[in-house]
């Protein structure tokens, strides 16, 4: 993989980033309603003062340039809804929580997914294959808003082994990360099984088998590296999705992550928070895919980026 390629990829990101800034900026502002429209009527004089406070009385083009200027300085502006906080502060508070939840979930997903998929591929068309794969289908079908409350009911309310909600102790992390990781584990197990089955047909595996290596050696030393490629390529979008799409899990378990801000801000027309979270997500997705490409090249000698 050449350095030129990496730099090229990064160079593409810059114009795309500004395109996203522009699109989100104007889209959210053209949506009906605004951050100050409220159930109680606000007198025009008060509305004017509120708008002046947030520079919303200036022409849109100037507001846009103003935003770009602040953005270049790393300043995402004050939140409209959370009056005593800046968007930078909100992200600094919520992003670590989302990252932790996301990484824990992904760890579960990888652990469960690769084990189940590996098992299934090792003994295809036996109950070792059918049982985990049926669970995987179930995991793909069941949404988090079903899995979460069921886990809470069983382990939180009936057995009282784990907390039902919150984000303080390590115990609080178990159920939400399992809930969120479950669906991804299902995909990963299917991908692992598929990848491994395909590798099994390859010549080099036949050679390995002819050398007299045990099945588990073949799996661990030869098949996994190639067989996991589909999983790796899935990990990029999965990581981004798991960090950004945890809204339901965050709400069920009352976790102070970013997903809630992302949705709330759009509902509240909290322009600056919408911008901040969208840009952050864009960057995350880009970075994750970028990392996947690098890993891909490292793992598969056939892949070359020029």
């Amino acid at each position, binding site marked *: 993989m050449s350095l030129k390629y990496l730099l090229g990829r990064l160079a593409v990101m810059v114009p795309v980033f500004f395109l996203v800034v522009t699109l989100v900026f104007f889209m959210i502002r053209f*949506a*009906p*309603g*605004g951050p100050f*429209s*409220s*159930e*109680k*009527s*606000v*007198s025009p*004089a*008060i*509305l004017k*003062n*509120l708008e002046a*406070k947030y520079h919303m009385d200036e022409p849109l083009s100037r507001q846009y340039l103003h935003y770009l200027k602040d953005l270049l300085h790393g300043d995402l502006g*004050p939140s409209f*809804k*959370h*009056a*005593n*906080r800046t968007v930078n502060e*909100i992200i600094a*508070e*919520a992003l670590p929580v989302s990252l932790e939840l996301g990484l824990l979930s992904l760890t579960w997903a990888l652990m469960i997914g690769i084990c189940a998929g590996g098992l299934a591929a090792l003994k295809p068309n036996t109950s070792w294959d059918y049982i985990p794969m049926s669970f995987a289908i179930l995991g793909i079908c069941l949404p988090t808003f079903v899995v979460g*409350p069921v886990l*809470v*009911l069983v382990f*939180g*309310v009936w057995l*009282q082994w784990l*907390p*039902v*909600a*919150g*984000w303080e102790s390590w115990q609080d992390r178990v159920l939400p990360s399992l809930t969120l990781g479950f669906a991804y584990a299902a995909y990963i197990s299917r991908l692992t099984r598929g990848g491994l089955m395909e590798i099994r047909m390859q010549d080099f595996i036949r050679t390995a088998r002819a050398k007299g290596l045990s099945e588990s050696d073949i799996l661990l030393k030869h098949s996994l590296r190639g067989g996991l490629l589909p999983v790796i390529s899935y990990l990029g979008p999965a990581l981004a999705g798991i960090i950004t799409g945890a809204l339901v899990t965050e*709400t*069920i*378990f*009352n*976790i*102070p*992550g970013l997903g*809630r*801000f992302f949705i709330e801000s759009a*509902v*509240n*027309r909290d322009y600056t928070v919408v911008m901040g979270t969208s840009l952050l997500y864009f960057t995350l997705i880009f970075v994750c895919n970028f990392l996947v490409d690098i890993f891909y090249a490292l793992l598969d000698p056939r892949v070359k980026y020029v």
Partner: protein
Amino acid sequence: MRRSTLLSCLAFSLGISKLLFATPQVLNIGNGSEPKDLDPHTVTGVPESQIIQNLFEGLVSKDPQTLKPVGGVAESWKVSKDGRTYIFKIRKNAKWSNGDPVTSQDFIFSWKRLLDPQTASEYAYQGYYIRGGRDFNLGKVKDSSQLGLKAPSPETLEVVLENPTPYFLSLLYHHSLYPVHQTTVQKHQMRWTRPENIVSNGPFTLQKWEMNKVISLQKSPHHWDAPQVKLEGVNYYPIEKPETEEKLFQVKKLHVTGTVPTEKIAYWTKDNSGVFRRHPYLGTYFYWMNVTRPPINNKLVRKALALAIDREKLVKFVVKGGQAPAEFFTPPGIGDFHPKALLPKDGSRIAEAKKLLEQAGFPQGKGLPSIEILYNTSDAHKKIAEAIQQMWKENLGVQATLYNQEWKVFLDTQHSHNYMVSRAGWIADYNDPNTFLDMLTTGNGNNHAAWSNTSYDELIAKAAKEKSPQKRNQLFQKAEEILLEELPVLPLYIYTRIYLLSTDVQGWYENVEDVHPLKYVSLK
């Protein structure tokens, strides 16, 4: 010597065991959504007000059982004969959480801040009762010394009102009229409500604020009534999902929930552990009728539509939370006002509705354009609208179309009067019928029906100047009668407060205003 050692050992161990086994006096409350801010002058929401009521204190406080005004920062007050001048005597031992005394100047600064156009407070109208308040807020008068506020001494505050306002004391419990600490506000500007900056004057102080996680209050040692305060701390958890709240309550992580999941109300009604709480609340669920839109501009059509709704059935089978059907607009019991039921309940109303529709020129609904009902996207509102759609069809042969809009779009549509019939709800700002009836006066920003009626306006203006409570209630009753004759609003039901309360909580009283000053609350 030996005996005394033994005794003191015993006493010591008793003390330790008491410390170890005593319930920590920390109350955990489910508090709905994440507060926007904790600035008494700029916030508008219920979760914010719940916290602010315990963080700050106004001139007057409320007895949680009787809801009558009791001394807050002011230990006593005098009202002039014409009911327009109030003289408050401020307690010498009223203190801010940094130890500063609370003075009359603090109130003058705070109320000027509330009314200052620069503060852009949505609740500024709560200061319009003060002489000159409205003009100052609207920028017509720039000089704040023109306001009816005077501080002859640090312990005396003189307030001159525009009109004799019999409910003025009740208003003072509202957070918009609480004092804020001048130097703190001026020094920290927008960030003054952060835990590291805030100075407050209530029974509790702000200790921790983690967004979407918890807001923790701690008992204030400086509060004048600190010996009365039994709780050491309070945790407010912003929990938006009623199901999550309910489960946290079941595992004893919460003492009080904000609400109960609708589909679980039936389950909790049967529970006899005494934790399920349900009581009337000062709020009305209703539909705005845009009187400028045909065919709703026809009074007869509006009346027919109003009569064709079976409110009893609606609350029993659709809303299902034990709400009361609204045969009037103002919730009963507000400021001792009990409006007379004006929409008949018996079977005669359907025949009457049919007759009215025929008079309007639409026999059996023939020729009547479809009635459009707008609501903000939510399952609960949808179910209610569907039930009404069906009642109109069955009882009158009238067709209705439903459409929903996302919250902010919905608000926009409502404010621009770009609808025919629209879902609405109103919760009292203060304990007086005026908070409901004033809304429908001509040109009021919240009058989304675009309705105007001179005799109605006159009644409300008269009530504002009337000192006798009985006469005021008569005026309000007349206003109600006009409303239910003209029907710019179509009342549906009176709200109920439904929540779970641990039996360990003491000193918590049910009341229509749903106020629970935590300085009276303790844990068993």
